[in-house]
C-alpha cells in the first residue's frame, strides 16, 4: 500500500520537475529560472525522501539536509549576483 502511495507521489513530483525544468529552459527572465531552480532543489528533497523510504534506508538523510542548505545558499548567491552583479564584494577601501 505504502509503495503505491510513494509511486504516485513520485510521479506527481516528477511532473512538477518537468514543469520546473521547462521553466528553467524557457525563462523568460533570469529570476524565473532561479526560482525554478530553487523549487527543483526542494523537489529533490522530497524525491530523495520518498526514494529513501522505498529503498528502506536512512543513508540519504544527510543528503536531504545538504540539499536544503545548498538550495538556500545557491538561491541567495544567484539573487545577490543578479542584484549587484558580483558574488563576493571586495573589502571596502579604508
Amino acid at each position, binding site marked *: 500500500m505504502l509503495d503505491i502511495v510513494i*509511486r504516485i507521489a*513520485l510521479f506527481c513530483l*516528477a511532473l512538477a*520537475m*518537468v514543469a520546473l*525544468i521547462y521553466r*528553467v*529552459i524557457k*525563462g523568460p527572465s*533570469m529570476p524565473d*529560472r532561479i526560482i525554478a*531552480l530553487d523549487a*527543483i*532543489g526542494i523537489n*529533490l528533497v522530497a*524525491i*530523495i525522501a520518498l*526514494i*529513501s523510504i522505498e*529503498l528502506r*534506508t536512512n*543513508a*540519504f538523510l*544527510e*543528503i536531504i539536509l*545538504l*540539499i536544503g542548505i*545548498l538550495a538556500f*545558499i*545557491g538561491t541567495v*548567491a*544567484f539573487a545577490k*549576483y543578479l542584484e549587484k*552583479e*558580483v*558574488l563576493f564584494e571586495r573589502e571596502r577601501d579604508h
Partner: protein
Amino acid sequence: MSLLHLAIIAPLLWAILVPLFYKSFRQIHTGWFVLPLPIILFIYFFSFISTTRHQAIVMETLNWIPSMGINFTAKVDGLGLLFALLITGIGALVILYSIYYLSKTKEKLNTFYTYLLLFMGAMLGVVLSDNLIVMYAFWELTSFSSFLLIGYWYHREKSRYGAQKSMIITVFGGLAMLGGIVLLHLMTGSFSITEIISQSQDIVSHSLFIPALLCVLLGAFTKSAQFPFHIWLPDAMEAPTPVSAYLHSATMVKAGIYLVARLTPVFAVDGLWVWLVAGFGIVTLFWGSFSAVKQTDLKSILAFSTVSQLGLIMSLLGVGAAALHFPGVKDNLYIVATTAAVFHLINHATFKGSLFMVAGIVDHETGTRDIRKLGGLMHFMPITFTIAIIGTFSMAGLPPFNGFLSKEMFFTGMLHVLELDLFNIQSVAILFPIIAWIASVFTFIYSMMLVFKTFTGKHQPEKLDKKPHEAPIGMLISPTILASLVIIIFFFPNSLLSENIISPALAAIFPSLLNTGTEFVTHIGIWHGPTPELFMTLGVIALGILLYLTFPKWRKVYKLFPDKLALNRLYDGIIDRSQSGSYRLTTSYMTGSIRSYLVYIFTFFIIILATSLVVKDAFKLDTVHVSSIGIYELLLALFVVIGAISTVFAKTRLASILLLGAVGYTVSLFYVLFRAPDLALTQLVIETVSVALFLVCFYHLPKLRKEDSRVRFKLTNALISVGVGVMVTLIALSAHSNKFFKSISQYYIENTYTEAAGKNMVNVILVDFRGFDTLFEITVLAIASLGIYGMIRLRLTRRDEE
C-alpha cells in the same frame, strides 16, 4: 689497452692538451707542439711494414661492449697500414706547412689544431678498426671534425655554407652506411670485418645482401665525393688550405675508397658491386675532369681534379674487384687494376697535397687564387713554380713523374674491361676505356691551365693586392718533400712501394685469392714497350696540347650545361624545398587554434577505436548481465538527456550554466537511486561550487565583443561529437558484454568491518584499503588551490607595479 690502441687515440688525447699549450706558450706557434705527434706515429706505423710484408696481421682487441659484439679491435694489415702511413705522414707535412701558413697572432690556433688532431685520430680509427661499429663511430667523427675545419673561418658565410653542405651530404651517407653495417650484422651475426669476409660466400644469396651493398656504397660514395655526391667538395674549399690539402685531397675523401677496398671481399662476389663501383667511378672521373677545366679558382680546379682522381681510383677498384671471379694470382688480369688503384692512391696523395700547398702559397703571397688575375709568377717564385710543374705534370700523367706510371696502369686496367665476360656488360664495356681516355685529355688540359696560367704569361700587378715574392722557406719544405716523392716514386716504384706497401695492401683486398705461400707480385714497370697504353698516353698529350691552346674557342661548350641544371642547384633546391615544404606542412595543420587540435584528437580517437572494433571484431552485445530498467531510472535519464541537449542549444551562456547545474543535480539523484549516499553528498556540494565558479567566470567576460550568441553550428563538429558519443557508447556496451571474471568487491564486503573497523565501505576503501589514491587526490586539490592562488596573486602584483 695495447700500444696500438694508444697510437690510434693518441691524437684525440693530444687534442685535449692543445688549448693548454696555446694558452701557456703564446710566443711559440702552437703547431710546433702538435708536429712531433704525427712524426712519432709515422715512425711507429712504419715499423709495422716488416710485419705486413710477410702477410702477417696484427690484431689487438680492447673490450668495449662485449655483450653486443662491439669491441675496439685494432687491425693492422697492408691496407690499413698504407692509409695509416698516409694519414700520419701527410699529417706531419701539413702541420709543418700550417705553422707557416697560419698566423699565430691573427688565428685561433688552439681550435685549429684541436680539430685537426681530432680528425687525425678519427681517420686512424677508421682505417685501423676491424669492428664496423667502431669504424662507423670514427667515420662520423671525421665528418664532424671536417665540418669544424671547413667552418674554421666561421665569420664567412661561404665557410658556413660549405661546412653545412659537407656535413649534410657526408652524414647522410654515413647513416646509410650504418644501415648497411646493421644489415651485415643481421646476415652474419658479427661486426668484425674479418669475420664477415669469411662468410661472404654464404651471404651473397641472402635477401638483405643487395640492400646492405647499396647502403654501404652510398656511404662510400658520399664520403669520397663520387658523382652525384661530389658537390660538397668544391664548397669545402672555403677551409684553410692546409685543411684542403690534408682532408680534401689526401685522407678523408679516401675514406670511401678505403671502405670500398676493405669490403671488396664481402661484396665483390656479386656483380652489382663491380658494376656500380666501376660505373660511378668512371662517370665521376669524367665529370670531375670536365668540370675542372672551366673553373677559374685554383682551389676549385684542384677540388674538381680531386673528384675526378677519386673517380679514377674508384673505377679501378671496381674493375679490380672482378679479379675475385677468377682463381689464382698469376695471369689474373684484373689484379693490375687494383694495383693501379692502390698505387694511384699514394701518387694522388703526394702530388695533390703538394699542389694544394702551392695554391696556398700563391694565395698567401699574392692575395688571390683567381687564375684570371694571376700570371707570370714564374720569376717571382721559382721554387713554387718548380713544385707546381712537378705536381701538375704528374697529375696529367707525364713522365718522369709517378702519375705517368699509375695512368698507364689505369689504361691497362680499363682495357681489360673489354675482356670481362662477366655480369653481361660486354655491350657497354667499350665505353670504359673511351671515357677514361677522354677524361685523361681533360685532366691534361686543366693540369696545364693550373700551372701555365698561374706562373707564365703576363704579370698583372694592378690586379693583385700584394707584391708577389717567394714564400718563406718553412712553407716550402712540405711541398718540396711531396714533390721529391713524386719523382722518387717514379724512378723506384718497386723497391719503395710495390713490395713493402702495395702487395700487402692487395693481400688485404683479396684475401681469398691467396693460397699459402703465394704472394702478390706487383711489378710496376716504367717502360712496357709499344703497348696500346703508350699510344693512348701519346694521344692524350697531343689532343690535350691542341685543346689547351684552343681553349677560348671551344669554351662555349660549357654553355651547353647551364647553371640551372647544375647539381648544386638541385641540392639548394632540395634544401629550400624541404624547408619551405615542411614549413608549409607544419603551418597547414598547426593552426594554433585549440579547436582544430581537438578536431584532430577526436577524429583519430574515432578512427582508431572504430578500426580496432572492426578489425578485431570486438563489438559484442550481450544482455546476460543487464539488469531490468525501472521507471525512475528512465525518468532521470530523460531529465539528463533533456538538460544536456538544451545546454548545447541554449541561447545564452547563463542558461547553459544553469542547465549544466540541473544536469549535475540530476546525476546526484542517480547516485541516490543507485544507493551511493557518499557520492550523492559530494556531487551536490561540488556541483553547487562549480556552478558558482562558472558564474564568476561568466561575470568576468570582457565587455568588448561580448557575443551572447548561441553556439554556431558546424557540420564537422556535429559529426565528430556524434561520432565520439556513438564510439564511447559502443565501447561501453562491448566492455559490459565481455565480462571475463568476477569483481573483487566481495573481499571488501567481507573484510570492511573485520579488517578495518568500519561500517562505511566507501570510506574504508578511500582511507584504508586504498588510502594512497586519496593522499594524492588531496595533493591534487592542494596544487590546484595553490595554483589558483598563485595565478591571482601574481597578476595582482604585476598590476601594482605598472
